[in-house]
């Protein structure tokens, strides 16, 4: 279980990393390595060059601007988890991070690494479906920004071009009266989810739901938004009947199963976990009519 031979590069700037990425044959970016290193050891990935982004200062850090909460792509999951800024502006991210691996893996794992690896059962791509961050992507010719929704292309596959690097993830400011909840089912704490659900509800004037977002991981190759179910809620007063209809619709969303957790079981878990998430959101809504 030794990786195939590769050359290791540790550029000190984004520019240098982009140059290497463009110049080298069969390169791979190393952004924490909590998934990539096992893949190298199993020889499931056999790059000729490994470009470690860990030394690039400009890819680290957390700040808040008018655009929202900005997180450098190489910021570790542990740093994000401990950040008071994140706790204030994006508590759903922290709730999800509590389920990401273990403290030792979070010390190394990065937000950019997780989003770009795009494991179907990973928590950070899932909550990103709900939080709708903007991704800043640097290429040799310039920088572009895309919404996260456009980022996933398929299982473990993103829209990132071979010569591009994800540099920054910006979570837009949340409107007032926005409540979130994250629920996950895994066999043991820290395991990849069998199914996970993230919910964000924004209440508007007159007790009507202004915005509803429901994302589910573990049923498709990429975490998915349940937009039809969301539409049942938006513009309506919060009610138990509505939530119940949403849960039934969520359960009917087709799922891909495997030998251990068949499709029917995963669909059922979607309903159970969404129900628990909605119950927690409802508790935060307080006196709103249920």
């Amino acid at each position, binding site marked *: 279980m030794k990786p*195939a*031979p590769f050359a290791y590069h540790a550029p000190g700037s984004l520019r240098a990393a982009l140059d290497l990425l463009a110049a080298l044959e069969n390169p791979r970016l190393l952004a924490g390595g909590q998934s990539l290193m096992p893949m190298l050891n199993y020889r499931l990935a056999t790059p000729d060059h490994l470009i470690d982004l860990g030394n690039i200062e400009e890819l680290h850090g957390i700040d808040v601007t008018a655009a929202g909460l900005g997180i450098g792509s190489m910021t570790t999951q542990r740093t994000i988890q401990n950040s008071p800024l994140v706790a204030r502006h994006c508590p759903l991210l922290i709730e999800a991070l509590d389920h990401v691996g273990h403290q030792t893996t979070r010390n190394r794992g990065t937000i950019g690494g997780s989003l770009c690896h795009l494991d179907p059962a990973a928590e950070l791509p899932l909550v990103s479906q709900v939080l709708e961050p903007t991704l800043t992507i640097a290429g040799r010719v310039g920088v572009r920004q895309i919404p996260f929704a456009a980022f996933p292309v398929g299982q473990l596959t993103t829209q990132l071009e071979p010569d591009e690097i994800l540099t920054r993830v910006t979570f837009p400011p949340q409107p007032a009266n926005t409540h979130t909840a994250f629920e996950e089912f895994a*066999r043991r704490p820290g395991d990849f989810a*069998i199914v996970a659900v993230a919910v964000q509800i924004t209440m508007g004037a007159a007790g009507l739901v202004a915005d509803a977002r429901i994302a589910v991981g573990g049923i498709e190759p990429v975490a998915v938004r349940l937009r039809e179910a969301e539409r049942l809620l938006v513009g309506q007063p919060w009610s138990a009947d509505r939530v119940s209809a949403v849960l039934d619709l969520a359960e009917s969303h087709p799922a891909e199963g495997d030998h*251990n957790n068949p499709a029917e*079981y995963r669909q059922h878990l979607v309903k159970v976990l969404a129900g628990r998430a909605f119950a927690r959101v409802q508790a935060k809504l307080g006196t709103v009519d249920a």
Partner: protein
Amino acid sequence: MAAEAPGHGTPGSFFRMEDDALLRGKGRFIDDVKLPNLLHAAFVRSAHAHAMVRGIDTAEARSLPGVRAVLTYADLRPLMTGDRIGLGLPSGYLRFHVDPFVLVKDEATYVGEPIVLIIAESRRVAEDAANLVVVDLDPLPVVVDVDKAVVNGSPKARLDCPDNVVARTSVKYGDTAAAFARADHVIVERFLLHKGGGHSIEGRGVVAHFDPASDLLTVWNSTQMPHRCKSILIDMLALAEHQVRVIAPDVGGGFGPKAVFHPEELAIAAAALLLQAPVKWIEDRFENFVAAVLERDQSWNVEVAVDADGRLLGIRGAVRHDHGSCTPYGLAIPYNSATNLVSTYVLPALDFDVLWCLTNKVPTSSTRGAGRPQGTFVIERMLDLVARRLGLDRTEVRRRNLIPAEKMPYSVPIKMRDGSPMTYDSGDYPESQRQALLAADWDGFPARREASLKAGRMRGIGLANYVELTGRGPFESVTVRVGPSGKILVATGATAQGQSTKTTLAQVVADILHVDLDRVQVSCGDTATSLLGVGAFASRQTVTAGNSACEAARIVAQKALDIAAVLLEVSAADLELVDGAARLKGVPEIKRDLGDLARAVNGSIGFPLPGGIPAGLFATSNFQVQGTPFASGTHVAEVEVDPETGLVEIERYTVVHDCGRVLNPTVVDGQVVGGVVHGIGATLFEWMQYDAFGQPLTVTYADYLLPSADVVPRIDVHHMESPSPLNPLGVKGAGEGGTIGAPAAIGCAVEHALRPLDIIIRELPITPARLHAQIRAAQRALREAAKT
């Protein structure tokens, strides 16, 4: 009892003498063995579960820089005395022998079977070269399911065998037909039980080095049985006893699989001889998943006959074991499963068919518990079904069937390997159950269930009684030697994989010689320091080596007194051993230290030994155990089930454990707790899965789940002590009881939690998806019933 500083006098909870080196990172494990010019090995393994090898192209691999050799069966065969590695233990049940080859000769029979051995300057280069070898495999029909494999016309797992039924016997006594004829109730069930691998934190590993100057092949091996390894190497490589030394250094866990001689052990030794260079092979985790033996699947059909009071009259049925593609060791697993159906209960008649079935999977051999957890699971499930049928309390139906203490020793007419009947030597099973229920606050359960219900959880409590055959013979060798330095060397054929073997033996010797523990050194697992040895399996070493240590130390103690009597010109009867010296009773100033006594009989040039006493202050004992002490106990598990997801969480766990006289409670607690954790794994998590083509599906720890610290509850251990009458120390083994009781107790608790849904647990492991499917079906059935 709290751990205290080393001292003498057993029993007691001493600090483990192993810990100082291990905690300081000064242990010496197999990968710590470093030799000059060491070469490294990797194997090319079969990617097919069943295939003929049509050709092997090694040219590209050979030409890779750093590669020293690319070896196939044809290259190694000239060094061997035979085609196959003679491993099979004698057994009347075998229909034919299926010993493995050192490397695949022409027919690959499981995914992971080694075909080519690469020797290179580093493991990395060896793996690079392995990727360059092209093995032309011609796939054959694959056998994966035991129930299909025993049917006439099934494909064969091996073309060189007549069929797939490699062994068959029946475990039988009493008049089962009559028992069923007069039964008031007969309960019929079917079970599919899985048990996984050993999963020691250190995988297997071998370093082999031939030194022409001393004409000695030294093999460091992460094994439970170095003496057996030596004997197989001698047989296979046409060497003599003085030409082979096998050393098991610090071993990072065994749990069964390392008792088995695997083909890689011979391949590496042969390569070292062939190349005249030291070779190291460290198994990686992928290899451990695909190529180390494990227990795997059993298919059960069971019928139980009881009278109107729920008393057992007889059991009959059959168990089929998925044995994999050869017989690497013994046939213990399903046999133990069947004999453990008797467990702690009065069972007048048993007629059980036991069948070993070849499949295209890695061979099986025992992991902790060795088939007994499965048998215990079945009898305990059946007793729960009896309770359900008769409307009895689950504890009461067990109480009615438990063997009463006054019947001890209790014989069951099942013939053991020595020809004697299976005899439970001592114990008080009803008292064990009583203490366990008390310790677990069984009566306080309803209040805890109410609290769980408020949180949407269904809570259940379950119990299981069990017995464990321990201390299998014939013997273990121990030599106790006192040197002029006053230090005491204990050399033994027993081996250590984390069971505190050294501490336990040192304690026994220190107690008898009345010295501090730090004066005792123990040498384990080296064929050069102990000429005879058997090794670690069947929870045997405290029974076998412990009693040899006791006997040898007593001989040494007497000899020390005899020497002192000559030197002090007093009668030996007036002397006593105190604080490492022989001293005159009542006159403590008149004494001779053990070191001085050793010096006196080590001899001085030309002078006769004092009093004509034979030379050397040492003794060897190969204490031959009579029978097999049966440890026993009761487990109580309390679980919460989330009916919406099927998740089972263990909330409380209580063990009452009786392994006879407890020498060191801390060590025994460690064995029991570790065993329970293994049992939790077997019950809820561990599952080595294969697809219909025999491809292993669970080859990482992301897919094969071990019980992590998060999911293991506090385990409350209580000891009972029913000394074994079979050996002077009164001890029984303690290594596996924790595992044997756990699946049955947890299964009982899960069934109890789901009692409103009338669910029966028939499969191991109990996964959330499986359990939820049962919950959902039961809920549907209840709804249907409510409609009609």
